């Protein structure tokens, strides 16, 4: 084996569906391993192989990054892809600068949160996007790339069409057949002797994408094919495995195509029934937020998972909100999520400011509340109301330099708890020794006003600081989830806390929408006379703003 990935659920006996605590460990062939990852947890997303906005030293100092998910498609710009040429024992870690003793790397073909239209997949390939256009990726190429890069986990290629309209039964059948065949190809013995694997030890930890669109029967059929005992030619292909599921490490759900198909079906049904399209209901108490879409989603996930024992790791790509994460943990028992909204927030200038369980009190520097009483998940720091705001980024976390009394945990990110460097480069013997030898000191947190200034002057460090902060907030969110689940009456308490969370925080993500407007405005206003235009906006904003400063 290239590495041993093990996932254990605590306690070992759990229901098929429902919240669960788990633990991931990984030991590679070269003896290196990563510290245990406790689940439920999240993985950091990457763009072109890097955690967006973070330099390597920042990745190193962000404890929240344990598992990073690498979409491979950007490397298909050049063939053979450059990471496959990287020499050394852990090529992907080495090339991308992740630490083998700290980071688990999973490799998937496409960026899971990319919603752009793309040419359809073919019989023997999927379409991928890179800056030079569309590239075809075949299962055999994918297998050889994974062999060369040696990620800790590889997501099998699957035909999961991203379409706006309903898929025909024929298309769904094709998708199932292709995905199964491609999985079998990946799980098949590695012929090439140069990789040093024998027939009995398979080089990959494989996650499989659960396909089948919005048909429960189709999803179930795909899953059942994985646990079926194989015979004759089929079995030979994956020898020594008897069933495909034996070679699988865990299951993946891609929410972008799934949610899109659900919405397409809803619109279609509404059209045939001649009723206006439904707007997701939103109640003030938040209890009935489990709307139709969420129920459908849960039913589809359950259909995919029902043939399997509950012991393998379950992963969801492209969750849209922390609310959705909580419901998936509660209703299904999903273990690991990527969280594109966390990265998106950093791109848009939003400092996340929420906690699970919900804090018992909110201070005046907490995020604003909407008309319906729900609170924003963070602060849109582009807003002029923050120009003079000297608070730290998150009101629900403390800064290391300013520990206050109360329940707030300390946010360990380098924006809230910056620490001066433990060493300084000494580039001349005449260096001021007092400076060079100065010990690390915890420094005051960065203020909202400073980040606001950096955003308005297009300084990249605004996004770096926000990226580190937001990753730390989501890490604390998952930590909170695990603590509640690990307490006495964990499940019961968790259900209550989920309701409280959904009733407190705004799930419509209004703050993201506002930040998107502000963000695009910055692009539009670049150039001559910008300050004048901004001044005008600021005056308007001053009169209409409801944000407390």
């Amino acid at each position, binding site marked *: 084996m290239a590495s041993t990935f093990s996932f254990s659920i605590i306690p070992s006996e759990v229901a098929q569906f429902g919240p669960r605590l788990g633990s991931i460990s990984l030991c590679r062939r070269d003896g290196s391993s990563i510290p245990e990852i406790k689940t439920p947890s999240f993985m950091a997303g990457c763009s*072109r192989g890097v955690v967006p906005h973070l*330099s390597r030293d920042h990745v190193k100092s962000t404890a929240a990054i344990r598992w990073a998910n690498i979409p491979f498609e950007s490397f298909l710009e050049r063939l053979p892809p*450059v990471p496959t040429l990287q020499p050394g024992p852990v090529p992907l870690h080495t090339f991308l600068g992740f630490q083998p003793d700290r980071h688990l790397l999973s490799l998937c073909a496409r960026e899971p949160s990319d919603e752009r239209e793309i040419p359809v997949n073919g019989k023997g390939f999927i379409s991928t996007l890179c800056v030079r256009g569309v590239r075809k990726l075949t299962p055999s190429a994918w297998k050889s790339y994974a062999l060369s890069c040696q990620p800790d986990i590889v997501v099998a290629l699957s035909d999961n069409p991203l379409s706006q309209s309903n898929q025909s039964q024929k298309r769904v059948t094709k998708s199932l057949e292709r995905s199964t065949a491609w999985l079998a190809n990946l799980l098949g013995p590695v012929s090439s002797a140069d990789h040093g694997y024998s027939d009995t030890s398979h080089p990959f930890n494989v996650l499989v994408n659960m396909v089948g669109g919005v048909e429960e029967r189709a999803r179930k059929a795909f899953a059942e094919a994985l646990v079926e005992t194989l015979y004759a030619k089929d079995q030979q292909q994956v020898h020594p495995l008897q069933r495909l599921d034996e070679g699988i490490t865990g299951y993946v759900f891609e929410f972008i195509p799934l949610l899109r198909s659900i919405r397409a079906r809803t619109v279609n049904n509404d059209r045939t029934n001649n009723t206006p399209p439904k707007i997701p209901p939103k109640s003030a108490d938040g209890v009935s937020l489990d709307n139709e879409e969420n129920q459908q989603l849960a039913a589809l996930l359950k259909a995919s998972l029902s043939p399997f024992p509950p012991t393998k790791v379950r992963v969801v790509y492209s969750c849209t909100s922390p609310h959705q994460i909580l419901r998936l943990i509660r209703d299904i028992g999903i273990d690991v999520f990527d969280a594109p909204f966390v990265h998106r927030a950093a791109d848009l200038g939003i400092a996340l400011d929420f906690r699970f369980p919900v804090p018992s009190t909110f201070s005046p520097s907490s995020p604003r509340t909407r008309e319906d009483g729900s609170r924003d998940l963070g602060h849109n720091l582009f807003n002029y109301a923050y120009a003079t705001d000297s608070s730290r980024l998150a009101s629900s976390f403390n800064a290391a330099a300013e520990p206050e009394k109360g329940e707030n945990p300390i946010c360990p990110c380098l924006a809230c708890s910056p620490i001066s460097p433990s060493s300084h480069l000494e580039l*001349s013997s005449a260096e001021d020794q007092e400076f060079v030898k100065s010990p690390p000191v915890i420094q005051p947190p960065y203020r909202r006003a400073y980040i606001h200034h950096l955003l308005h002057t297009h300084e990249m460090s605004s996004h770096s600081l926000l990226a580190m902060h937001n990753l730390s907030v989501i890490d604390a969110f998952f930590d909170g989830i695990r603590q509640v689940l690990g307490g006495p009456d964990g499940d019961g308490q968790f259900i209550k806390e989920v309701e409280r969370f959904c009733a407190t925080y705004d799930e419509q993500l209004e703050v993201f929408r506002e930040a998107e407007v502000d963000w695009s405005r910055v692009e539009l206003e670049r150039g001559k006379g910008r300050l004048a235009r901004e001044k005008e906006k600021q005056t308007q904003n001053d009169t209409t703003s409801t944000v407390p400063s």
Partner: protein
Amino acid sequence: MPVATQAAIKGLTPQQVEALGINLILNNTYHLNLRPGMKILKEAGGAHKFQGWRHNLLTVETFPSIHLRLVCLVTRSIDSLQDSGGFQLVSLSKFTKITEEGALFASPFDGEPTMLTPEESISIQHTIGADIIMQLDDVVSSLTVGPRVAEATQRTIRWLDRCIETHQKSGKADVQNLFAIVQGGLDPELRDQCLEEMIKRKDRVAGYAIGGLSGGEEKDVFWRIIKQCADKLPEDRPRYSMGIGFAEDLLVCVALGVDMADCVFPTRTARFGVALTLNGPINLRLSKHEADFRPIDESCPCPTCVSGTSRAMLHHIMTLETAAAHAVTQHNLVFQARVMGGARDAIINGTFPQYLKDFFANYFGDAGYPEWCVNALRSVGVDLLDGASQAKVVSGSGAKWERVE
């Protein structure tokens, strides 16, 4: 000294900058006055606190004094403003009218005429709390000729007096240090006049800047003006050459007797994908680097090279991910600091001429030595060609770039 126009070294946090061994950065008063504005800076307790930069102890040390522990803020008159928009000095002179009272310009906020007087410029810098503050000067483009240059020179001297007056009265003269700016265009006579007047005021200024250069003038003229100023300026005051950033320019200036310099070049060129090395700049965007697994420079102690970031990886993310700009910015700042740190050591050890020879041989060995560097260094008794009989010499600016072949 790296430039943080908007109170941030582009892409890096103050802690990252500090880890590189850098303890001196530069902000731009004009920009900070526009945004965030003096009110916000005042509320934040000054620029150091606002941007979380803690190296604010001040001792203006003597030559070679690049490692002063201070934050330097520079006000230049509006039409020599270096904006982040391009390589050239961006002239805002269309909006600016220099009168004896001050610089009258159209406010970028509302287009209203706004007057920046020498007195006001000093008081803004007092609010910001910089350790070194600059007089307001009347700069003309270094390509300007005619009576306007003389007028600007004389006015700069008069404005210096007004700045000194304000500064002395403010009671901040013992915590903030006022630098004069030597002007005079490219005319040696005007430079002499300006030098003479400013040296007379030596007891009331902490140091001298050499301004009005790096605006597209011939390199051959540039070094002669630097030399002229450096030769005359008093030994016990630091000399600061404004807007010098290429490694060869820096070393020539040091050889001619300059102590400090600032430029956006290392950080800006990093964002465009150019990594600086002792063998010349590397343009990481070129496809020749796409499968090169070596770091930018194996001997470099910067975080980028030490963590093994390959040229291939940087090529892959350059200009598409901000992380690429961060990585090369860290490298280039360390490169610049290494070049200057090496110069300091060589000066202390008495090996500076050899240091210059080695540097130029590595940096320009294959492309040819810029003629102006050879001439400039000969004027202080260093012959780059001594012992390098094979060396090629090229005329023109001689700046070295890696281009598509």
